[in-house]
Structures are given as C-alpha cells and as structure tokens.
C-alpha cells in the first residue's frame, strides 16, 4: 500500500539541522564576499588578488568532494562496510564536486585573464583540472547507465577509484612541472609566507564557507538520491505486479 500523495509545500530534503547548517553556510559565505571584496590592492596584482577569497576555497572544496567520493566508494566496495548509503554519499559528493570543479576552472580562468593575459593555456595544472572535470562528468554518466542499483553502485565505485588518480597529479602539478599557475595556495598559510594577514583571513573564511556549503548541498543531494532509489524500486514493484496480473488473466 502506498502513502497518499502530499499536498502543499514541504521541506522534502530538509530538517531543522540542515536549516541551521544552511544558515551558518550562508553567513560564512556572506562574510567571505564582504571580506574578499574589501581586501587591499596589491603591488603585483592590484585588485585581482581579491579573488583569493573565492578561487582557492572553491578548488579545495572540489578536492574534498572527489576525496569523499573515493572514500565512500572504497567503503562500498569493501565487503565488511558495504552499504548502499556509501554509494549515495559517493553519488551526492561527485555531483556537488563537479559543480565545484567547474567553478574552479571558471574562477581560475577569470583570474588568469587579467594577470596572465589569457583565459586558458595548456599548462599542467589547468590541463589536469580540465581532465578532472571530464573524469567526474564521466563518473556521473556511468551512474546514469540503466542497470540494477547494486550493479550501478559497483561500477560507479570502481570508476570513482580510477578517477581519483588525477587528484594528486593535479595537486602536485605546480611542483612537478614549470607552470604559469602559482604554487600551492595552502603553502601560503605557513607562518613564513609573505601573504598579508587580511588575505589569509579572507582565504580561511572562504575555506570554511565553501566547506559548509558543500556539506549542506551533499546532505540534500544524498536525500534526493535516496528518494530516486525509492521511486525506482516502486516503479519496479509496480511493473512486476502488472506482469503478474497479466499472467493471471492469460491463465483464466
């Protein structure tokens, strides 16, 4: 027996906890924008260094998303920890991750144009980032191939573990090859770096804000995934019931 369809608006994937998380994320994001846009001009990059509050935090979150996807996929594949919830976490994190990878490329390109003079160049870091986007779009495509939920989960988990290989290469690209891209932004957080305190504060708030936004999005996307699975299972149950009814009619 199915529950009657609901009427009127309902917070389908939200709970009081996600509302609080969303509010804190929004507050941190507002603070990041306010702090970032108020950063002082620098001698080398003038006004463009204000993008430091957005671009490195978006890139960090993209890495975090694909790392969570890989860990959840490994936990799904490991027989002792196999649980469909890990597959949902991987799916949710990958989709949110693709949004952040795309934003990483877009904000990087916007920063590159006035400082390097080009929107895009085939440098090692940029190429590895573009490859990362393609690989995770591929992961999402694998998830859309029609299959039994368990088969899809296994295929996707293997794909995620293959795709994660590009992440350390991307991260270390600025050390291993001569690139236009600057060194690792996280290295600027060392006490010995030349970065001014205001820039570090804006960047750290940006890291916090983007991580909170990511967490909020993943929780909602996870619940969407669960609802989609339930809908698929109901559709399957209805199809089986229909076939059985047809078989009974033929027998009669």
């Amino acid at each position, binding site marked *: 027996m199915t529950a009657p369809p*609901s009427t009127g608006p309902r917070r389908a994937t939200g709970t009081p906890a996600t509302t609080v998380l969303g509010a804190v994320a929004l507050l941190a994001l507002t603070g990041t924008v306010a702090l970032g846009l108020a950063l002082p001009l620098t001698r080398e990059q003038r006004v463009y260094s204000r993008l430091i509050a957005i671009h490195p935090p978006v890139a960090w979150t993209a890495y975090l998303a694909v790392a969570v996807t890989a860990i959840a996929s490994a936990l799904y594949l490991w027989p002792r920890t196999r649980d469909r919830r890990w597959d949902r976490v991987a799916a949710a994190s990958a989709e949110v991750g693709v949004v952040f990878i795309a934003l990483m490329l877009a904000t990087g390109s916007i920063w590159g144009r006035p400082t390097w003079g080009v929107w895009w160049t085939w440098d090692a870091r940029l190429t590895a980032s573009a490859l990362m986007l393609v690989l995770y779009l591929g992961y999402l495509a694998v998830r859309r191939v029609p299959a039994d939920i368990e088969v899809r989960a296994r295929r996707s988990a293997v794909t995620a573990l293959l795709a994660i290989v590009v992440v350390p290469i991307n991260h270390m690209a600025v050390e291993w090859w001569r690139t236009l891209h600057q060194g690792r932004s996280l290295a600027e957080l060392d006490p010995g770096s030349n970065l001014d305190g205001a820039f570090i504060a804006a960047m750290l708030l940006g890291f916090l804000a983007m991580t909170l936004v990511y967490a909020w999005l993943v929780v909602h996307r996870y619940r969407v995934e669960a*609802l989609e699975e339930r809908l698929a299972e109901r559709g399957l149950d209805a199809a089986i019931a229909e076939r059985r009814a047809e078989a009974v009619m033929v027998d009669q």
Partner: protein
Amino acid sequence: MTYVLAGYGITLVVLVLYAARVIVRGRTLARTVGDDDR
C-alpha cells in the same frame, strides 16, 4: 574590478542555481514518493 565581480558573481549564481535545483528535485520526488524520507 570587473573580473573580480565576475569571479564572485559566477560562483554565487552557480551555487544558488544548483542549490535551487536540488531542493526543487527533492520536493518533487517527495511528493511523488509520498514520503519526505526524514
């Protein structure tokens, strides 16, 4: 400043649009399935 505003703007717009898409999809699915999965 145009590039800076473009960087911040595109980030905020994309995040808001994606969040809206996830929320709307969740509401539609919950109405279809008949349970809000809490």
